[in-house]
């Protein structure tokens, strides 16, 4: 148990929590809340970023490049 307490909370550093030892109960609570929010926020964002990209982005890049090469050389 004391060893667990001495460990920084996993993920807490991502949202500015830092080490959990020597914190007051209310600071513990803040860390727990920030940890929960940070984890859900990252999961939410990851789910968005993991969506397959529409092909139109690569099509656009290819068109822009083709245009450039035509104009450039």
């Amino acid at each position, binding site marked *: *148990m004391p060893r*667990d*307490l001495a*460990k920084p*909370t*996993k993920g*807490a550093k*991502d*949202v*500015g929590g830092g080490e*959990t030892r020597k914190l007051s*109960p209310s600071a*513990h*609570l803040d*860390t*727990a*809340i*920030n*940890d*929960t*929010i*940070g*984890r*859900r*926020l*990252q*999961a*939410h*964002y*990851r*789910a*968005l*970023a*993991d*969506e397959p*990209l*529409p092909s*139109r*982005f*690569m099509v*656009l*890049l290819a068109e*822009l*490049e083709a245009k*450039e090469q035509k104009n*450039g050389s």
Partner: protein
Amino acid sequence: MALDPVSKGNKGNGAASVAFREGLIGEMPNLRAFAISLCGNIHQADDLVQEALLKAWTNAESFTPGTNLRAWLFTILRNTYYSLYRRRGREVQDSDGIYASRIATAAPQESALEMQEFRVALGKLSEEHREALILVGASGFSYEEAAEVCGVAVGTVKSRVNRARAKLSELLGITGPADIGSGGVSDSVVKRASGGAFS
């Protein structure tokens, strides 16, 4: 004076242009996630990303290789959003079902209901609070970088992130030990975060 090939290094066939192109492609998923967070729906977000990519390409000379491409792209996308898209109104809920299936993989520790509640709460934040929280808490920016992207002082970003967190915890009902102990937050979170101090 002859044209300096370095000045157009991000375009053409040189190494810098290849790196720039690869960088753009690499940042696409992240840009899109940020765009969805701003717009609230995927279809409008894709238009926004498309617009931002076009602008980035057209203004490639203004990017200095070796500097933070992600911050540069996010700034372009954000400016485009505020000048062209914002007035169209934000759809808080996105009807796409794809998200629901992805979220289970992305958030193995959270229940589908918890994530749904989180998403709704995030949509209720003010625009500036939401974007600050996303940039710092999810997109991987430091407070300083986020301040640069938003064009505000670092202290402003910090304050917005803190307020966003406070508002979220209020909306989600996780403001006190009782809420964490018995409410919507799983026990494992409490144990892991507090080392059992609440027991």
